[in-house]
């Protein structure tokens, strides 16, 4: 695909994921054991034969930079192929942070102009789906559209999305970002393809505006030209905007709604293997309906859970309905229920975390954490015999001194 340059929006910071995104961009969040969320869009781009990709990142890009590496894992390496991280920069006259998705692209117009392509595909780095972009690109070219926006139907109504009205021939006739009541069934996947010249013109026009987002500022203003089209995507599409949606998306893998082998998703296999490689999982316990990654050592019980590489579950320990990130050690007789536990944590002996029937939401984040999930930040050490109630958040490296932490607590 020589005629398309891709840009991946991987910059945003999201407070709704609480401590999981305190030290990493959302698109770098681990998912399904060995992947990071951005792997999905990168694999989609790879399978579509896109040669060049720019990743717009601003918020804590370190883990993303390391994950993407040279780009070889997605074949974005070679004389004509490449992937570039595009951070904010200082120019002669001024410098600025990206003020929004459109501004991020605007500030990288010189990168876009390096490439002799007619179209720019812009995708969000934090969605989980497998899509063949080729029909989407073909549709855009055949319709001679200035812009084509991808829409999908959602089961649950939410005000977090942009909604579009699509006419019979596929033209986008109405669009509203985060409306109080949805305009239609069709929500924007923040997946766009623009004619390059059109995109540059419109970005320059909008450059002085106070708000610079594609959804809020660009899309509503271009539909009147009647050359903006909508493309409908009808397969699995998931997002991880909140703790609940992140958790449920992970669990969709256990109910086999997501088939990663068939989707042919690629990731960086070298990461966190500094000294030796990780062995395969060594299992001598009871594992049921779970995903166990390389280097895990399972001596206890694991049920309905997803374990990233290097997790240890000691004798008598039980991990149920949980998501455990890399290298976390769960010691003797500890019991975890509906826990998302970040990397390099240590859960001491006889610790009990979570309670599936918990009714009290988080005191501080009542709208974000009320479904009984407990979130432990990176490098949390839970001392032996501690009891932690559900809907609790423990921030990275927080010190736990109480033997009993009430449901709905926040510990920093």
């Amino acid at each position, binding site marked *: 695909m020589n005629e398309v340059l891709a840009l991946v929006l991987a910059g945003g910071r999201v407070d709704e994921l609480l401590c999981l995104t305190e030290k990493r961009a959302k698109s770098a969040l681990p998912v*399904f*054991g*060995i*992947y990071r969320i951005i792997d999905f869009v990168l*694999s989609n781009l790879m*399978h579509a034969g896109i040669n060049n990709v720019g990743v717009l990142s601003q918020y804590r890009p370190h883990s993303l930079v390391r994950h993407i590496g040279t780009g070889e894992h997605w074949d974005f390496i070679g004389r004509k192929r490449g992937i570039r991280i595009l951070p904010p920069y200082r120019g002669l006259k001024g410098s600025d942070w990206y003020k929004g998705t459109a501004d991020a692209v605007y500030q990288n117009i010189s990168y876009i102009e390096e490439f002799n392509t007619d179209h720019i595909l812009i995708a969000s780095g934090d969605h989980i789906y497998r899509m063949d972009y080729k029909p989407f690109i073909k549709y855009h070219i055949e319709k001679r559209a200035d812009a084509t926006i991808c829409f999908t139907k959602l089961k649950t109504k939410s005000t977090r999305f942009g909604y579009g009205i699509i006419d019979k021939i596929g033209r986008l006739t109405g669009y509203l970002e985060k409306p109080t009541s949805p305009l239609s069934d069709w929500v924007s996947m923040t997946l766009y393809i623009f004619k390059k010249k059109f995109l540059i013109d419109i970005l320059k026009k909008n450059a002085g505006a106070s708000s610079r987002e594609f959804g809020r500022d660009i899309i509503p203003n271009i539909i009147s030209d009647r050359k903006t089209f909508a493309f409908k995507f009808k397969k699995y599409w998931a997002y991880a905007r909140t703790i609940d949606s992140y958790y449920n998306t992970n669990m969709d893998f256990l109910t086999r709604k997501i088939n*990663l*082998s068939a*989707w*042919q*998703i*690629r*990731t960086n*296999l*070298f990461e966190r*293997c500094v*000294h*030796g*490689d*990780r*062995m*395969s*999982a*060594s*299992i*001598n*316990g*009871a*594992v*049921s*309906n*779970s*995903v*166990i*990654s*390389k*280097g895990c050592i399972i001596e206890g019980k*694991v049920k309905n859970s*997803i*374990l990233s*590489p290097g997790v240890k579950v000691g004798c008598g320990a039980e991990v149920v309905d949980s998501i455990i990130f890399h290298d976390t050690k769960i010691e003797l007789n500890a019991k975890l229920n509906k826990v998302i536990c970040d990397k390099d944590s240590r859960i001491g002996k006889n610790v009990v975390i979570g309670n599936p029937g918990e009714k009290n939401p988080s005191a501080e984040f009542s709208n974000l954490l009320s479904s009984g999930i407990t979130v432990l930040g990176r490098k949390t050490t839970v001392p032996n015999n501690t009891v932690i109630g559900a809907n609790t958040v423990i921030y990275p490296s927080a010190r736990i001194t109480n033997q009993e932490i009430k449901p709905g607590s926040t510990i920093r």
Partner: protein
Amino acid sequence: MNKNIIALLLAGGAGSRLNILARQRAKPAIPFGAIYRIIDFTMSNIANSNIDVVGVLTQYKPLSLMGHIDSGRPWDLCGRTRLVEILPPKTGEEISDWYKGTSDAVYQNLEFIEDFCPELVLVVSGDHIYNMNYNKLIAYHIKKKADATLCLIQVPIKDAHHFGIAEISEEGEIQKWTEKPKKPKSNLASMGIYIFSKESLIHVLNQVAKKGGVDFAKDVIPVMLNKNRVFGFNFSGYWRDVGTIDAYWNTNMDILKKESGLRIKDWQIKTNHFVKGKIGDDPSAYFSRSSKVSNSIIARGCIIEGHVQNSILSPGVKVHRNTAVSDSVVFHDTIIGSNVVINKCIIDKSVDIGNSVVIGVGKSIPNKIFPNHLSTGITLIGKKVSIASNINIGRNCIINPGVHLNKSKYESGTTY
């Protein structure tokens, strides 16, 4: 960093005693411990000893080995001053020949050695499972001002006749050397690890080659004993030659035994994760509600619905419902149907096993064609074999690569 030493890794052996496992690949390229290949142990030892230049001498079916070693990057042997180079037999103006033996292979690559002007040359074999920091050996060699140093390990005296056996003085100098003695006088066996001072090596190789000698143990060491300082370095850790089916199976099973001394994780063994031809990466292993797994190693991409016990499963193996796999080693992408029983088998890559199949059950009659390869009850299933449903296969059987089985019964000891 060790700029004054290079390593030569002998990876040419055909490994005929490993039967069909080595039919289509060199012995060092045989999968081991789910995700590794045998050569990873020596390659990792070299890398972990900070030796920067490695020549891999190949001859027999080198393709899978070359693909595995690739650019050398998995072992960090890739960069301006770090490299791994494959050294196959070659034709030239004067020499044009297959490698006739271990020392002949090195002799034919003297140019490679000269390119790097090292002071020392480490010669190692690529088909052993062990962990060793060669720097101790190097320090010993230098301290003793030796021309050659051999790594020695104590073996049970009853097994000593399989090895080159050394008798050493108190200082460690080798006084007597016999290759595969009928009546061994010592139990100090050579591990096939040699370190030479470059000048002595070049001198002796030229000399031996003139007389038609081709082997380190048979030809080179005896010549050096007369004229040079040859020392023995005692090694006492875990070390296994996996040259036979029994040794290969036992060594795999040692991974599952905590007290065996085989500690891959602590040894920091590195391997090449890239699988050529795969479009996506394998996701992590999935265990269904009906699965039951004990004391086993399960690699990425496996889907387990049945029971797995004391077994090692390479990436992409599927075990369907009500199936029991025990005491077995299963290579990549093999699919095992439902209601199957498998005991004490080594199953090669991409084998397709139907439903209600039984393998490795029955009397242990030695294999009729290869009684010295297979007599302890292990059944071997070759690469890309397909086995129809409702078939019984006994013990000590060999099913050749690529065949399709549809008879209802294959007695113990059969080769098909």
